[in-house]
């Protein structure tokens, strides 16, 4: 008996959240200060941390370099990507914490090569797309900020985090929205996982069919081309003999 409404399918593990100094309890301790202004400042701090929290995995790209990532997903799966960019400051030899005016262009292509999403975002952004065909989706990022041309050999540090499937579900949000108890929330998580497994299995069936078609096509090609080449070989041999025979007869050598 399912009384829980399913959340949309997303995939896989969420990447890093904000890194907190001192851990969760430190913030709770600070909360109990009680002063309204302190709480206001704390709220701002929390907001800032929410927005600017380090996202864990990062890599470096050059000015005009394009980096592409591939997500192989079943259809009707939502993928969420979060990124944050930092620019290298040559004078200070450090990465600036946040650089306004820096833009990243995100382009997502579906397995057939059709562009699903092609948008420019700021220095920090979040992009979402839902797949309508199963297969390899290509997510490409490149920076086309004009500011970077001022810095010769500019380097960007990009924090990236892409998830699709059920792990990216925001469970506290779901719990609050549907007013679920802890047990119901756990059951909801299990349901989401099972649905992800089912989708992946459907996708596997589709992939296996493609694989089988490819193998059968190879089989056919090998068979027909072998026959064709043997026939051509024989015909060419016959033509050669006849041609040479008539040539030698013309030359009165035979």
């Amino acid at each position, binding site marked *: 008996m399912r009384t829980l409404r399913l959340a949309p399918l997303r995939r896989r*593990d*969420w*990447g*890093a*959240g*904000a890194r*907190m100094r001192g851990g*969760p309890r430190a*913030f*709770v301790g600070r*909360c109990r200060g009680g002063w*309204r202004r302190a*709480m*206001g400042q704390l*709220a*701002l701090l929390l907001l800032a941390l*929410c927005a600017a*929290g380090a996202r*864990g*995995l*990062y*890599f*470096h790209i050059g000015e005009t370099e394009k980096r*592409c*990532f*591939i997500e*192989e997903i079943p259809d009707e799966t939502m993928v969420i990507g979060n990124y944050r960019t930092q620019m290298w400051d040559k004078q200070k030899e450090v990465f600036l914490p946040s650089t306004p005016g820096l833009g990243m262009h995100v382009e997502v292509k579906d397995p057939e090569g059709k562009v699903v999403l092609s948008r420019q975002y700021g220095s920090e952004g979040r992009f979402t797309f839902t797949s309508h065909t199963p297969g390899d989706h290509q997510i490409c990022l490149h920076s086309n900020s004009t500011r970077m041309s001022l810095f010769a050999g500019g380097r960007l540090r990009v924090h*990236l*985090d*892409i998830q699709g499937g059920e792990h990216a579900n*925001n*469970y*506290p*949000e779901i719990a*609050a929205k549907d007013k679920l108890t802890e*047990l119901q929330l*756990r059951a909801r998580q*299990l349901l989401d*996982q099972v649905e992800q*497994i089912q989708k*992946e*299995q459907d*996708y*596997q069936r589709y*992939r296996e069919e493609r*694989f089988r078609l*490819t193998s059968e096509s*190879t089989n056919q*090609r090998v068979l027909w*081309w072998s026959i*064709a080449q043997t026939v051509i*070989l024989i015909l*060419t041999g016959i*033509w*050669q003999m006849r041609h*040479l025979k008539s*040539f030698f007869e013309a*030359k*009165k*050598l035979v």
Partner: protein
Amino acid sequence: MGPAGARPGSPPSPPLLLLLLLLLLLRAARPRGAELTFELPDSAKQCFHEDVERGAKFSLDYQVITGGHYDVDCYVEDPLGKTIYRETKKQYDSFTHRAEVKGVYQFCFSNEFSTFSHKTVYFDFQVGDEPPILPDMGNRVTALTQMESACVTIHEALKTVIDSQTHYRLREAQDRARAEELNSRVSYWSVGETVALFLVSFSQVLLLKSFFTEKRPAPRVAHS
């Protein structure tokens, strides 16, 4: 819910603050890890960095999906620059390590040994254990009920299922890439061989004819 309700200068109400706190804890408490598939061009190296706390255990699984001989070099360095893992020309591997030093760990994939095949590499980097889905689930004072522990067991089992599905999907992608490459290779080689066949047979005949069409009177001797 609106974290955007906090405006500068106006103190937020305690529930809103707690909501913000909850959101922040949520973000902090999410499992740290990344699973990405990227293209590695030939003679290129790509590095990724992740911040790891001291004592945290992290694991790196990687697999080459398409390209060349399906192998790649990989090395992992700790914040002090020491190489804690290095393998060359591996198709897939799994590496776990308990971080002794806090800092930024770097792992790199190198295709520098290959001159013309670009590779697609999948890696899964996980740090730490999976945190609970609600932040306060971790601070329980009572033991889990039977229902809850059953849920936990099922959750762990389903995670194993999802992981093995990913593993099979990657294997299948590799096999399918090889099969498709074989298919197109059969096509090109067949057409090429047919063309070569025609060329060789024509040139054989022409060459043979050219032996006997030199301006030598010798073959005509029989007339006299």
